């Protein structure tokens, strides 16, 4: 099953009731899948919107009335959605937004790239807010994390971004779906479904009194702190005795893993840290690893974005190198192996220093 279709099926099984999208490569198979499978389901709706902006605002509306809603796009389309995402964050509304990102800036290229790390992890739109960002690296994880995205969005009343790329979207892998679509979902407490017999609820994004907004900002950030504490996720691979740790996410982590396996057979003690949540970033884990390992190589399919989070986490307590391929160029495991070998040698790690 292709990655894009996998997200679609997983979303339906997570109880997604509404999908709104506008076509863009390389995520069209997801829209197509939702058109074919969600549109026909009772009580569910699929709309191909007139624009990306319309689509995110439809998600906004659906979320207001308590539906599990999703939209998807690719880099430039996600830029257009940022205003809506900021509004969702302000109103504390759940939503799932999929970005099968491509090369940038501008219209960029349609090939796989990771150039939207900053956009995804720094909120993206205007205002003081965060979104949870999940970075799957395999077909199975696309399924599992899509399901998790809906749960997290509801649990914390927050927009959740799934950050993939063109390659994850197009690649086919066997996938096992662990959940059946729920018969019925509980109705969220703050959903607007008519105020008969109770005082009306007001959900809004504008607050005229600065002190009132300040209180809202504090309440959002207390929740963000809780998310940092509870939901940070990562995978480690052969880090126990590593002298060099590669930090990579998504599809790049997969390519790096291939390189690391080869490095190990060549006697190099190399491991990997793969953040699964890009926000919250596993800073504590980086710090902990730095107690045993001095050298870190950040590998991304961009010019260096996640490297800033690694450097922040290390607080100068490790040496960070970078290797990146931007523009939609897909690096090979042997290319990464060459970088790893060179670095390993340059830093004199063979000698056990």
């Amino acid at each position, binding site marked *: 099953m292709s990655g894009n279709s996998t997200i679609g099926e997983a979303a339906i099984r997570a109880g997604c009731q509404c999908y709104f999208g506008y076509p863009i490569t*390389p995520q069209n198979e997801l829209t197509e899948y939702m058109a074919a499978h969600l549109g026909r389901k009772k009580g569910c709706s699929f709309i191909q919107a007139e624009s990306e902006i319309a689509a995110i605002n439809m998600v906004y509306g659906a979320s207001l009335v308590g539906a599990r809603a999703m939209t998807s796009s690719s880099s430039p389309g996600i830029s257009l959605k940022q205003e809506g995402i900021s509004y969702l964050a302000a109103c504390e509304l759940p939503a799932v937004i999929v970005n099968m990102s491509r090369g940038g800036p501008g219209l960029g290229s*349609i*090939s796989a790239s990771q150039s939207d790390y900053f956009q995804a992890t720094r909120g993206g739109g205007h205002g003081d807010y965060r979104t949870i960002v999940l970075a799957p690296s395999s*077909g199975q994880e696309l399924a599992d994390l899509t399901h998790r995205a809906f749960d997290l969005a509801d649990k914390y009343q927050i927009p959740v971004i799934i950050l993939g790329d*063109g*390659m994850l979207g*197009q*690649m*086919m*892998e*066997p996938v096992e779906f662990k959940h059946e679509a729920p018969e019925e979902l509980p109705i969220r407490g703050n959903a607007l479904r008519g105020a008969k017999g109770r005082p009306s609820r007001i959900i809004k994004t504008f607050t005229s009194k600065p002190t009132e907004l300040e209180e809202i900002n504090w309440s959002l950030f207390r929740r963000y702190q809780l998310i940092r504490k509870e939901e940070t996720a990562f995978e480690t691979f052969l880090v126990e005795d590593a002298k060099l740790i590669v930090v990579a996410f998504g599809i790049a982590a*997969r*390519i790096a*893993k*291939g*390189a*690391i*396996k080869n490095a190990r057979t060549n006697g190099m003690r190399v491991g990997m840290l793969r953040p699964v949540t890009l926000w919250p970033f596993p800073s504590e884990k980086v710090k902990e690893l730095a107690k045993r390992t001095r050298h870190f190589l950040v590998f991304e399919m961009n010019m260096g974005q996640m490297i800033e989070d690694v450097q922040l986490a290390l607080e100068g307590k490790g040496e960070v190198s970078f290797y990146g391929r931007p523009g939609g160029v*897909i*690096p*090979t*495991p*042997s*290319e990464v192996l060459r970088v790893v070998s060179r670095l390993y040698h340059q830093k004199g790690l063979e000698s056990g220093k």
Partner: protein
Amino acid sequence: MLIKTIFAGFGGQGVMSMGLNLAQAAMLEGKNVTYLPSYGAEVRGGTANCTVAVSDEEIASPVASSPDFIIAMNQPSLVRFQNQIQSGGVLFINSSLIEAEISRGDIDIVRVPANSIAEKLGSPRSANMVMMGAFTKKSNIVSVSSVIEGLKSALKDKQKLIAINEKALMAGYDLL
């Protein structure tokens, strides 16, 4: 054992179907598999390729730096990929459409006149399956019965197409 294969040719020759076919067969045999299509503004007559990785263990990278097998269905694919193949690997050439000499001496070369065999069978479009048959036999990654099984699930209830494709597959299989 990790084995990577690149299928390449013109859009419309069925190279993506060949890759999917291998991926499906490997999945049926309970192996780990990834199928990665080349993705661009692909059109009929343009170039297309896909990479299939099959392994007993978890597959790290779906990208092939130096594949074990390459199937070149046309001349541009041969030019593009022949230098990538691993030393000792096998290069399958559709000799109906490719006349060029191969510059490498460290690989095994299998020439299959896929188009002319398919034409003789009365189904010119099944040239990809002729090649698939030869590839299945030589590469020994999956069994021919799994390939047929995969073919059936891809074509579902189109009995006529299944018969044509199976015939082409076996013609290629029996060639080697």
